[in-house]
């Protein structure tokens, strides 16, 4: 229900931010190479995209969209996995080009038939022919078509071929394609775009000189994935409009996965989506996590059970305890009163978020330029630190304040100006005073500047005095005096003002950057179970297997299985025993020995009551159990049959050396 709306909205947000980015960027690029098209070589753009392969799809899609809108209708996107040979490549290329032609110009049926006929004998000549007919047609039909001005400028719009993942194409295919198309470049204005994940050098290592000389390569660098991430965090987390928030641990997990595992923005978004799903699924009060307008309605329509749920929230309990006793009783018994209070609290929470964001940005302005970045370079690090606990209690904050007290004036002034901008742009109306205050600071700084001129005169004159005196004693004395005066002068207006500014910022931080879990009803908006997230996104199947085999008690809560330390009891499931025994062996395992060892263990469990008469039958069962356990291990990939010796199996895990 609610969940899906949110998801869609947020996905859309992301896409828009992506597109906006790529738009502006590629627009520049495309205009750049329009001038190059006329050269004799095949104009080629090499797009260095970075290692986050999974995000490339989006980039390319937006790129082709932009191109289609602005420059040419003829675009083909090629992927390595579709093109194992030159034939497939041509086929794919023709198909895409002609289909897209069909799409754009919406041809009649007879033409479509013709196109599909063409597809059968795919060759460069047929492609050229097709292109000629198409351009002729468009020429004649141009007035009726709505084309952007840029494409009307050219007589013939170029055909753009995009190789999505250049590294994984076979070199042969690429070379052939380039050589062939270079011969047709006269008739067919072809433009290639290579998507590159590693480094631009790859072009030269993939293509020999004779081929690469046919290309006229222009290099473009796309934005790094980190920047993408920070924009997304900016847009999603650091806004007051989006009601759902991430807890500190969760955010940390997501960022860690991003930084240490895949650098993929898409995966980050996926994790974020998962968080939302989990939150709405597991937290019954998450219905209140929505836009303020809806929230009011929903609070009013809360059922009794839901009110009880609110009362159970730890943060709400804390709030209740801090109230006077009559109010406590009212809160705990009267649903209506509770609803009122809840509304108020939710509003508080919203206001808190608004303030939080702008103060956070402001603090970021201050800390991000300090040497050694005690509070982190990126705003997300600062955000994490603030969420974790009271930021002003940390050492890093202390040291960064100290450093801030040593800033020079021009930096300070620019920072203050930035802060003013932030506060002005923020919607919260509490900041009027803050803005005034900051502006006051600024004017004072300007005054100081004026005064500084006079001061300089004074100091110059004193130095002149100094030069007059040549007596050593006097010199010493004056120097001492100077020193003293300087010490006191250090705390003159500028210093004082600077301290004031820093203290003011400090007070802002203390007021507004209270960690979210100190706030009442934060559970509604914050998602905090990081372990669930980690389990679903960054699972460790090997460890799960390992623990299950080594320590079955973890899963099967039976006292008989409880064991001390690493050893397992002999009552463990068969597969655990067999596994344990196989750990003892080297590369090859003799099945007979294994079976014997297994039966020793199992017999010991069945113990003395298994008398000799029935031993034959029992043996059969043990044998069968052993067979089952061994074949299960084989299925799990711990062993495989070996031909090197009869009745032996080979170990496959690392221990088998």
């Amino acid at each position, binding site marked *: 229900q609610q969940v899906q709306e949110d998801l869609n909205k947020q996905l859309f947000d992301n896409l828009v931010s992506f597109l906006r980015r790529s738009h502006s960027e590629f627009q520049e690029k495309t205009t750049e190479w329009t001038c190059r098209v006329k050269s004799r070589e095949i104009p080629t753009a090499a797009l260095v995209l970075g290692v986050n392969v999974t995000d490339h799809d989006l980039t390319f899609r937006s790129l082709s969209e932009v191109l289609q809108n602005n420059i040419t209708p003829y675009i083909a996107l090629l992927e390595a996995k579709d093109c194992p040979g030159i034939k497939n490549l041509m086929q794919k290329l023709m198909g895409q080009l002609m289909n897209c032609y069909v799409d754009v110009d919406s041809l009649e049926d007879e033409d479509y038939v013709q196109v599909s006929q063409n597809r059968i004998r795919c060759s460069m000549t047929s492609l050229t022919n097709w292109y000629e007919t198409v351009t002729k047609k468009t020429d004649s039909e141009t007035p009726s078509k709505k084309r952007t001005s840029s494409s009307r400028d050219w007589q013939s719009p170029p055909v753009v071929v995009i190789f999505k993942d250049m590294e994984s194409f076979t070199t042969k295919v690429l070379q052939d394609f380039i050589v062939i198309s270079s011969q047709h470049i006269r008739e067919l204005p072809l433009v290639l775009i290579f998507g590159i994940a590693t480094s631009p050098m790859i072009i030269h290592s993939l293509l020999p000189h004779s081929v690469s000389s046919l290309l006229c390569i222009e290099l473009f660098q796309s934005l790094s994935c980190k920047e993408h991430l920070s924009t997304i965090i900016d847009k999603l987390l650091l806004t007051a409009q989006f009601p759902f928030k991430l807890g500190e641990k969760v955010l940390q997990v997501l960022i860690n996965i991003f930084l240490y595992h895949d650098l993929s923005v898409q995966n980050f978004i996926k994790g974020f989506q998962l968080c939302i799903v989990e939150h709405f699924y597991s937290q019954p009060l998450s219905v209140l996590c929505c836009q303020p307008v809806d929230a009011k309605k929903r609070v009013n329509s809360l059922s009794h059970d839901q009110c009880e749920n609110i009362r159970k929230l730890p943060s709400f309990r804390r709030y209740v305890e801090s109230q006077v006793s009559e109010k406590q009783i009212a809160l705990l018994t009267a649903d209506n009163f509770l609803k009122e209070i809840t509304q108020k609290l939710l509003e508080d929470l919203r206001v808190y978020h608004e303030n939080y964001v702008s103060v956070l940005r402001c603090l970021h302005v201050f800390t991000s330029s300090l040497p050694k970045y005690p509070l982190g370079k990126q705003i997300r690090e600062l955000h994490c630190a603030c969420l974790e606990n009271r930021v002003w209690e940390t050492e890093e904050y202390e040291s960064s304040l100290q450093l801030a007290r040593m800033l020079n004036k021009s930096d300070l002034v620019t920072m203050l100006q930035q802060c003013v901008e932030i506060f002005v742009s923020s919607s919260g109306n509490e900041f009027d005073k803050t803005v005034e205050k900051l502006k006051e600071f600024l004017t004072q700084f300007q005054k100081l500047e004026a005064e500084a001129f006079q001061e300089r005169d004074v100091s110059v004159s004193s130095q002149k005095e100094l030069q007059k005196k040549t007596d050593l004693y006097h010199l010493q004395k004056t120097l001492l005096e100077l020193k003293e005066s300087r010490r006191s002068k250090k705390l003159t207006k500028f210093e004082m003002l600077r301290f004031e500014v820093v203290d003011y910022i400090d007070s802002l931080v203390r007021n507004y950057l209270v960690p979210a879990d100190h706030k009442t009803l934060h559970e509604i908006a914050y998602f905090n179970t990081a372990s669930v997230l980690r389990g679903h996104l960054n699972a460790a199947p090997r460890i*799960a297997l390992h623990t299950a085999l*080594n320590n079955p008690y973890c899963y099967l809560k039976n006292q008989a299985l409880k064991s001390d330390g690493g050893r397992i*009891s002999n009552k463990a499931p068969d597969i655990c025993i067999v596994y344990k025994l196989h750990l003892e062996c080297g590369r090859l395992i*003799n099945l007979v020995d294994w079976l014997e060892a297994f039966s020793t263990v199992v017999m010991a469990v069945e113990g003395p009551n298994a008398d000799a008469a029935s031993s034959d039958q029992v043996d059969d069962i043990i044998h069968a159990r052993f067979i089952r356990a061994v074949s299960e291990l084989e299925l799990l990939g711990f062993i495989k049959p070996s031909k090197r010796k009869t009745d032996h199996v080979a170990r496959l895990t690392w221990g088998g050396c």
Partner: protein
Amino acid sequence: MSQPEGKGSGALEVKFVPDEEVLKHIADGAGIKVRKDKTQLTVSVKRFVKKLENISDDEAQEILEEKNYVAALGICAQDPVGNGSSVSGGEVYSFQTPKRSSKMAELAAELAQTPGQSVAPDHSECPEKTAKTPQSSNMFLLLMHVFSLQLQSKKKEYVATTPYRLRKRLAAPDPYLESESEYSASCSEEEDEEDQKEVSTVLSGRKTPAKTKALSTPPPRNTLAKKIKEDKMSNLVEEYFEAHSSSKVLTSDRTLQKLRKRRLNQQTLHDILKKAPLAYAAEIKELNQQHESLFSKWMLQLHLGFNIVLYGLGSKRDLLEKFRTSVLQDSVHLVVNGYFPSITVRSILNSITEEVLDHIGTFRSPLDQLEFIIKRFKEDSSLELYVLIHNLDSQMLRGERSQQILAQLSSLPSIYLIASIDHINAPLMWDQAKLSLYNWLWYETTTFSPYVEETSYENSLLVQQSGSLALSSLTHVLRSLTLNARGIFRLLAQYQLENKDNPSYPGLSFQDFYQQCREAFLVNSDLTLRAQLTEFRDHKLIRTKRGADGVEYLLIPVDDSTLTDFLEKEDEDV
């Protein structure tokens, strides 16, 4: 490693300094190079001391305590291994020192004998010792760290294993020492030395030699902790290559055939296992119920565009089946039994196009087919399909291309994929691109239920191959042939059976075969023989192979027992 433990063993170390001097000349006398260093706090050293120096009883008692302490320490060091998800990767499959297979029997005996109560009470004695020597604790903590590293890699209790080299060094210990060590390993707490010896000699038997090795020390390391670590790393590397360079594998030569037990075939195996009660049924049921409570969540997440993959020990087939019957009853779904040995991506795609999309016709390649499916699903948004794949990591599906196709399929918004994996290396199938296509959510579903269906197709090592299929096909084909042809095949089969004990039997060379056939009046020219052989080959009855000398060798690719059966049957017929 926690603080008190470190201190406790610190006490151990200090007390030990005088003994080391003693040890030095003992070691010389015994001809065993035991280096004098502080890390050698292990039990074997003490054993030497005790044996040759006649230490008074109470001291022996103390040593015993320490010994137990070391044991307890070993166990503590392993604790993190058992702590569920906190296991670090390195511990999971660390290098292990090569061991003989006799160790296995030994461990089995161990598991059978000691329920592990001997160690627990000794913890209480540690605190007394901590008071004694706090000064050495700091330095010892460092060492302890290294120690624990070593101990962690050895997953057995204090029967720690030793590097290969050291074992060689200790290859010829004197019997007296052995019995002594056996005593210490068994960890009984008796004080009287004489008694101990007796007990140990009674207990020892075949276990003894290995025990000595087990309790001996790791390779000498007497520098700083850091250096020890490096040492350890390089040692591991060396050990690895040492173990892999020698192609000789030390295992016993016993084979199943010498065992008086007959081999079981698939059917009897199945029957027996059905009779055998399933251990811990109640707990397994509880686990399953836990997993089943997640069904509605799975549905939600599937609908939101995620796909679900299940991992963990135990068959997940029943769980998925239950999911299917309880939730997917009314929707279109496709169950793929990945463990089935002849499943292919093509068959999966075919069943989608034919059963789900009602499309009749063939496709040139799986890629075309995939494209068609994608197009259809995109056109018709009301079309929904649940795909359940048991064992996505099975032999047939784990290939790069099939995974690629499945991933593309699963990335469709209206196809919901839920799959299970079992192989330990299954996640290696997927690269970043595929992972993002699959859009997995991982769920740990350890069920501990036996892989009944999954392993029934596995050609298990221990299950007798009935070969009934091969046999019937043989007889069928041969029945349709002429008498002479049958004779020719018989000759070849007999020859192969005569040579069945020769492991390097290349097959019967064509010339010899021709000669034999002529003698038996079966053919009159080598052309007819060749024509006959071509027919055999077309029916896959024989295989030809060119030897090193260019001669053609003929071979029947059927195992010996089937061939014998076949010949017997033929004899009956004739």
